[in-house]
């Protein structure tokens, strides 16, 4: 850890101001208590506090060493008491020797020293306490902010992993059935087979390339969905019909890639897979109060289906919305008169 005072100009200034404050305090105290030594007490105080300040600055190094993780409290306290005793002794010896060297009235100083001795010890312990407190306060603040930063990093990592997992996977059923259609078309309609292979490739490229969580424009999202629906149309022919009403102004809005895919997969799965009637998927996109409203609806066969849906697709979309937008986006579904509708509200200028 870097030295908290020496490496920061502001802290250094504050540091000296505090010492100035302490020095004036001690001078006043000694002046009133031992008035007759005014000439001695001022230089003595200044010198002694400069010395103590120097010792205090260097105390940081043993302190940050004591504070290594896994130190037992008892040995920490022993270390602190020992270094305190050493510091105070060193401080007093240094102060006395230097003062005796520089002051002409040496006898006066000895007298003064003896009179102030208990106060000196008191001051020394008090200041040592202050230093310990401020250093440890500093250390724990640093640790706290480091812990917070670590937690934030961890949280964003978890979020990223979760987002990766939630991103829709290509449904193997879709893939193999599409490939089977291609296999069939190579015989009956090679032109169409080539068209389908190209569309399937483009769709796969889009789905696979969106590994990063960079948002994409609604325009490219819908272009990709069109590929997907075109492929399904080859499989199901006239049974699948799509209709789009998309406000051009919405198309540059950014959303997480492949966000809508599971909703269309659901429409196909519960609509086309389970029905023998024509299934119409209607997409409406418009702007309402700074939000893009995306509505996807499809009719479905109301009889009991062979397997109940697990709701995973819808839950994944809802969870992704929450992770990306917090409470600024929403998703709703309704079932009415054989029409299933899902509606999303997404802020237009979030990314």
């Amino acid at each position: 850890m870097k030295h908290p005072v020496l490496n920061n100009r502001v802290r250094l200034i504050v540091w000296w101001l505090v010492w100035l404050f302490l020095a004036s305090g001690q001078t006043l105290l000694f002046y009133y208590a031992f008035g007759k030594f005014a000439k001695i007490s001022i230089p003595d105080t200044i010198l002694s506090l400069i010395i103590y300040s120097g010792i205090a600055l260097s105390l940081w190094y043993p302190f940050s060493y004591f504070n290594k993780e896994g130190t037992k409290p008892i040995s920490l306290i022993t270390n602190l008491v020992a270094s305190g005793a050493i510091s105070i002794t060193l401080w007093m010896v240094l102060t006395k020797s230097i003062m005796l060297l520089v002051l002409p009235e040496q006898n006066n100083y000895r007298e003064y020293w003896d009179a102030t001795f208990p106060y000196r010890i008191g001051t020394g312990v008090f200041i040592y306490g202050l230093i310990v407190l401020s250093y440890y306060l500093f250390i724990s603040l640093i640790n706290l902010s480091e812990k917070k930063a670590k937690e934030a990093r961890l949280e964003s990592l978890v979020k990223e992993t979760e987002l990766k997992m939630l991103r829709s996977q290509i449904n193997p059923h879709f893939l193999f059935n599409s490939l089977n259609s291609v296999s069939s078309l190579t015989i009956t309609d090679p032109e169409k087979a080539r068209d389908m292979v190209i569309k399937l490739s483009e769709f796969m490229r889009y789905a696979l390339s969106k590994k990063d969580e960079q948002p994409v424009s609604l325009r490219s999202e819908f272009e990709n969905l069109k590929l997907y629906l075109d492929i399904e149309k080859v499989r199901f022919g006239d049974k699948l019909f799509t209709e789009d009403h998309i406000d051009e102004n919405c198309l540059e809005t950014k959303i997480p890639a492949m966000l809508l895919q599971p909703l269309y997969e659901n429409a196909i799965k519960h609509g086309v897979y389970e029905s023998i009637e024509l299934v119409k998927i209607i997409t409406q996109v418009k702007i309402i109060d700074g939000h893009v409203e995306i509505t996807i609806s499809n009719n479905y066969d109301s009889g009991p289906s062979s397997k109940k849906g697990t709701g995973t697709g819808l839950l994944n979309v809802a969870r992704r919305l929450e992770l990306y937008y917090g409470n600024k986006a929403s998703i709703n579904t309704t079932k009415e008169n054989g029409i299933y509708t899902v509606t999303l509200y997404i802020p237009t200028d979030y990314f």
Partner: protein
Amino acid sequence: MKKIRTVIIDDEAPAREIIKHYLKDLDSIEIIAECADGFCGLKSISFMKPDLVFLDIQMPRLTGIELVEVLTEKPVIIFITAYDQFALKAFELNAVDYLLKPFPKIRFLDAVNKAIDKIRSGTENLEPANQLLAKKPEPASPINRVVVRKGNSINLIPIEQIKYVEAQDDYVMIYHSSGKALKQQTMKYYEDNLPVADFVRIHRSYIVSVHEINRIEPYGKDNHVAILHSGDKLPVSRSGYKHLKEELNF
């Protein structure tokens, strides 16, 4: 030699096309019908009594699996599906083979030859089935409906309407809100495939919907009896009582 009368059932036109194309060169095969959903398929099989059926699994109205379950006279069946999860089930239903989409012609012809052998001679090559049965089945997701046949009509019973299931020799009797229906299946099948949160096996011969239970009373020394809202009384065995306790938290 008599031609083998064949029906193709798949909800995707291109998938039917490729089968037709592969079959074109085989003089012994005659395609008599094509269907795009399970109901149509069931009708065709019931009325036309084909020798061979190519059957997709995921289809509207009635899945391929459900279709075979309600057939009284089963033709030789080749299942065709895009995804592996149903394969094991297909063999439980006596399919002669199953193909994974997309399939090469040689694999297709192999399946057709197996079917022809079975139709002409009645013998069967069980090798692929045994291979599959050695594989561990995937945990099935619970069923959502039961398909039963009543005379000529087919009923889809949503599982919410099932009150209880009773074992009757090789069959089970399914009691539901609008009557009862007999089905050739095992208790084990229902124990495994009905949602565990809603159904409990209370006895060797009974699986009951927990929503139908009105109260449980002691009966005899250490047996119990479940009384349903309808008034029906079902025996509860000792282990059944334990299951009930776990499920209902009492």
